[in-house]
C-alpha cells in the first residue's frame, strides 16, 4: 500500500498541493484525474520522490519514503516502474538498449540473460522486430509500449503512469490502457495513473481521486462517478455537450 498523508507542496510561494491524503491499493488501477494544471503531475512526482514535499508524509508500505535520504530512497526506487508523459526513452539508445538499461545498472545478469529478459518484456508489450530501432524511428504508441517494457524489466512492485494516453489515438489509448491493466494484474503492482481521458476513467477506474486546484475534491470508483452530485467533478467529467446530455437523460 502507498499512503499519502496530508501533503503540501509549493513552488515560489504558489501552493500547488494542499493537504492531500489518499491510500493506493495493490493489484488495482488507481486513477488521479483533474484538469490540466490542477496538480496531478506534481502529486505523482511527489509520490515517487522526484519532488520534495513541504509538509506531510508519503509511506510505501510502512516506510516513510518522503523522509529517506537519497541512498535509502534508491532501494525503493528499484521497485518502481514509471511511464512518463513523453515516454522518456533514451534517444541515443536503441529500443533493446533502453529495456536492458535498468538490468545493466542493477543486476548481475549475463549479456544473454539480459537480452532474454529484454525480449520477454518487449514481447509482453507486443513490440516485435524493433530491437535495433531508435526511439525517433518508432511511433508514439510504440514508444509508450517500449517505456512500459523498460518499466517492468525489473519486476516492479509499484507502477506509475503519467498521462499514458496523451497524444495517442483512441484505439492506441485503449491498447495501452489494456496493457497497463494486464500488467497490474500479472505483476500484482500498485498502479497509479494520471489521466484526463474519460474513456480510461470509465473503463479502468477501480479507484479514482479527483484533484481540483491542488486539493482532493472527490474519491470513489468509476461506478460512483456517474451518480456523484459533486459539481466540480461533474463539470470535469461531463464537460462536453454530448456527455452532459447523456447524464441528463440518464442513459448511463
Amino acid at each position, binding site marked *: 500500500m502507498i499512503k499519502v498523508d496530508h501533503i503540501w507542496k509549493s513552488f515560489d510561494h504558489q501552493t500547488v498541493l494542499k493537504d492531500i491524503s489518499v491510500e493506493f491499493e495493490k493489484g488495482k488501477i488507481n486513477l488521479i484525474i483533474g484538469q490540466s494544471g490542477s496538480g496531478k503531475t506534481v502529486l505523482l512526482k511527489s509520490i515517487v520522490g522526484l519532488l520534495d514535499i513541504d509538509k506531510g508524509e508519503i509511506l510505501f508500505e510502512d516506510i516513510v519514503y518522503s523522509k529517506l535520504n537519497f541512498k535509502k530512497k534508491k*532501494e525503493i526506487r528499484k521497485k518502481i516502474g514509471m511511464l512518463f508523459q513523453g515516454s*522518456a526513452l533514451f*534517444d541515443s539508445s536503441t529500443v533493446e538498449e533502453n529495456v536492458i538499461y535498468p538490468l545493466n545498472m542493477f543486476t548481475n545478469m549475463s549479456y544473454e540473460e539480459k537480452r532474454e529478459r529484454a525480449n520477454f518484456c518487449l514481447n509482453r508489450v507486443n513490440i516485435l522486430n524493433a530491437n535495433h530501432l531508435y526511439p525517433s524511428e518508432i511511433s508514439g504508441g510504440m514508444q509508450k509500449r517500449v517505456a512500459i517494457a523498460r518499466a517492468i524489466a525489473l519486476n516492479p512492485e509499484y507502477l506509475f503512469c503519467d498521462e499514458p494516453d496523451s497524444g495517442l489515438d483512441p484505439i492506441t489509448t485503449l491498447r495501452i490502457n489494456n496493457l497497463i491493466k494486464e500488467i497490474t494484474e500479472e505483476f500484482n503492482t500498485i498502479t497509479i495513473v494520471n489521466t484526463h481521458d474519460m474513456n480510461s476513467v470509465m473503463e479502468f477506474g477501480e479507484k479514482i481521486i479527483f484533484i481540483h486546484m491542488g486539493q482532493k475534491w472527490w474519491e470513489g470508483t468509476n461506478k460512483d462517478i456517474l451518480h456523484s452530485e459533486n459539481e466540480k467533478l461533474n463539470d470535469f467529467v461531463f464537460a462536453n455537450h454530448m456527455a452532459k446530455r447523456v447524464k441528463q437523460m440518464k442513459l448511463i
Partner: protein
Amino acid sequence: MQFFYHFGKYFILLTKVFSKPEKSRIYYNQTLKELINLGVNSIGIVIIISAFTGAVITLQTAYNTENPFYPRYLIGLMARDTIILEFSSTMVGLILAGKIGSSIASEIGTMRITEQIDALEIMGVNSASYLILPKIIASVLFNPLLTMISIAVGVFGGWIAGTATGVVSSEDYIYGIQFAFIPFYVTYALIKTVFYAFIITSVSSYYGYFVRGGALEVGRSSTKAVVYSCILILLCDVILTQLILS
C-alpha cells in the same frame, strides 16, 4: 545574491557528481564513449584552427618586427612561445567551450526537459554522476592531448606560412623554435588545459542539468554555458599565470 545561489547550487551538484558510482563498469564504458564524443571528435577543429592561427601568428610577428637589428629566428621563437603559452591552451580552451560546452548543455538540457533525467532518477540512478562524471573525466584526460596536437600543428602552420611567403627562412624558423626553449612552458600549458577542461564540462553540465521549460530555455542555457565557461577560463588564466609563472 544570484551569484551565491548559483555558486552554492553548482557545488552541491559537484558533490552529487563525485559520489560513488553505482556500477564502475558502466561508468567506464560511458567514459570511453565521451572520450570519442568530446575528445576525438574535436581533433579536426583543433587542427584546422591551430594551423591557420599558427600561420597568422608567424606572419604578424614577421611583419611587425621588420628591423635589421632583430635576428629573423626571433619570428620562430615568438611564434612558438605565443602558441605554447596562450594560444594552444587558452584560445583552444575558448574554442572548445563553444564546441563541447554548448553540446553538453544542450544534450543534458534536452534530457532534462524530455524527462529522461527523471527516468534515470526513478530507476535509482544518480543521474548527475552518471551523466556528468564521464564527461569531466574524458575531457580532463583528453584535452591535454588536444593541446599537444594544437602546439605541434600551430608551430608547423607557422613554418609553412613563413617559408611559403618568404618572410623567414626554414633554417631561421627551425632555429628559432628551438632557441631558449623552456620545457616548463609546456607543463604550464597542460596544467591550464586540465583546469579549463574541468570548467567547460562542469559549468556546461550545470546549465544543462538545471534547465526548466522547453526548447527555448535549452538554447538559452547552452548560450549561458558557453559565456560563463569563457569568462571562467579567462579568470582562471589570470590566476594560474600569476600562481605558476610568478
